[in-house]
């Protein structure tokens, strides 16, 4: 499944504040300038609470910046109504969460097929067939009928990866996809994720604590004190003459 429509994501002077219960305001992100090109892999590093996930949520249209503009293919996010956001999330974005977020009462196959239900006109058989193919690509064809509680953590995350990629998104937003896994399993999952994202030609924004894993990305960024800075050590940089 290659040839996805690339998407350009651009944050222009974006800030994000949260009101605290005591009335104070917490600045999570400040004046962020960031561009994600179609097809590139970006690793976002930073300490817990630094704003990495908030950055990812803004990119995934799950929340809006408090200030500044977020452009999706040149369109400001604040101009998108909920219907349009849903459509874009379904068609252009894939999400991988740290704790998998699988539907417990649904089989692995049904979990993978979920995005197709809400964002595709395909018939039931076609949806199931597509989901089964994707499950096979993450190496879980034989566990299609298994429920999440019957799968290991690594397998569950691979199901989540399959779910994120099943519609051929333009960009996958992965929030610490290996955070709940041991090192080896995490590496395996990341291999699958990077491999499939590369095959499909989609962008990947990867939030991680793991310096080692971040070196697999084309570009590395770090979030510190609300600011996003480039970090040396990405693959793209290494490829430079």
């Amino acid at each position, binding site marked *: 499944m290659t040839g996805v429509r690339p998407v350009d994501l651009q944050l222009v002077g974006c800030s994000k504040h949260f009101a605290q219960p005591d009335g104070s305001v917490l600045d999570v992100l400040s004046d962020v300038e960031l561009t994600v090109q179609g097809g590139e892999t970006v690793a976002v590093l930073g300490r817990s609470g630094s704003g990495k996930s908030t950055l990812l949520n803004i990119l995934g249209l799950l929340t809006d910046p408090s200030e500044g503009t977020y452009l999706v293919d040149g369109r400001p996010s604040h101009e998108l109504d909920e219907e349009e956001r849903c459509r874009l999330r379904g*068609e252009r974005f894939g999400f991988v969460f740290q704790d998998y977020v699988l539907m417990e009462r649904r089989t692995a196959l049904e979990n993978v097929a979920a995005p197709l239900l809400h964002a595709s006109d395909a018939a039931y058989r076609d949806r199931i067939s597509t989901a089964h193919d994707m499950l096979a690509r993450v190496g879980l064809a034989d566990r299609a009928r298994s429920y999440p509680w019957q799968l290991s953590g690594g397998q569950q995350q691979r199901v989540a990866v399959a779910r994120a990629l099943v519609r051929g998104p333009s960009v996958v937003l992965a929030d610490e996809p290996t955070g709940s896994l041991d090192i080896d399993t995490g590496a395996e999952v990341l291999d699958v994720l990077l491999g499939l994202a590369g095959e499909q030609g989609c962008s990947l924004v990867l939030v991680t604590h793991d310096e080692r894993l971040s070196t697999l990305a084309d570009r590395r960024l770090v979030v510190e004190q609300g600011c996003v800075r480039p970090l040396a050590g990405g693959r793209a940089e290494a490829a430079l003459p």
Partner: protein
Amino acid sequence: MTGRLVREAVVELRRNLVRTLLTASGVTVAVMAFTLVAGVGEIARNSITADLEGVGGRAGTVALTLDTGAPLGELGAARAADVMQERLGRYGSSAGSRAVLATTETVRRDVAPLPSKDPDELPCGSSTSSVDLSADPDQSVFAVASPCTLPVYAVDPELLDVMGAPMVAGRWLRPDDARSTAVPVVVSKALATQLRDLAHPTLESLLGSVIRDEELVQQPLVVVGVVGDNAVTGALGEPGAGFVPFEARTRFTPTRDRGTVTAMAVMAPGGAERIADQAAGDARALLTQAGFSRPAVSGERIDEAGALGGALRALNLVLLGIALVTMGLGAIGVLNVSLMTVRQRVREFGLRRAVGARPRDLAVLVLCESVQVTLIGGLVGVGLALLVGVVLTLVGVDGVRDLGLVGIVRPAALGLLVAVATGVAGGLVPALRSVRVSVLDALRR
């Protein structure tokens, strides 16, 4: 999209089979109770209506009476009757009859037996004997018990259907009676009682008797039947009345025409109350146009079924109230389970929103699940109620046996409808809750 969501809802319900069955069973009991309770009301209503129709009570009867206060003469009476019948015919009446009060006053009259009791073989009046009423009553077997009035109505044979009054003896008028040489007359029970004498001690013995009044009636009247009294005969005039064929009215020469000419009665199921005044007003206008000066037309609603229906409606309201309370409890059960389900599935809803589900998709999904549960419960409940109906029919419970399952079909359909409505009502709040789920908050749970 909706079709896919319906299927998704089915999957969700199957994956939570125990919860689904428990919720549906609550709805089943509620719908079954609703159907049976509403069915009892329906059966009671049908049963009472059937009973009423059996004894002559109708869904509604409108009687129009024209009183000009002056003699109209034969042609005037007939014309007024035609106008009023034409008017009443516009109200969708299922039966109608003309009744013309041809003569209203009679004093002591002769009553004479005929050789033959067969009305079809009635000879003309000349074969009957007249009795001098001044003769000694002790020596005369024909003397009437007391002076009596003889209001005679010329009526259509269909009037009996309208009146619904039972025949006490003999028969009612037939269409071919107008051609009989001797004019057949059916007397009311009240008049027959007055006419009885020593020679005619029973009502049956009056059959074949001749009522002769050379002043009032050109030809003798031959009694062919005795009809019971009821509200309609009373409304037409005095209870002590005689009825002769309408087409034979020209063979009367009433000496005294009081001017109370025409009474019309039609059966108007369900609409009697509404059309009584309207019909009277319309008839009044038409009669004025037809040249009658200041016609006094009164419309009267005679509605035995309606009178009982009031009490029945109250009973039905009580039963409906009980049924609705039952369904309300079912709805609360569904609401409770649906709310709990939404709360448990907040994370799932957040995920669905993240992968492209629109808020309304989630609302439809929740509503589908709710309606499907109540539909399943409703179908089973209605099925059980029908089963109970079949058993009662087979056992032969009064009312149910006679009416079969007809009485319960409508409540069953209503029960199913209410079940679906319950599903919508019970699922609406949870559906709205699902719409308000914040994606980020849901995913953090």
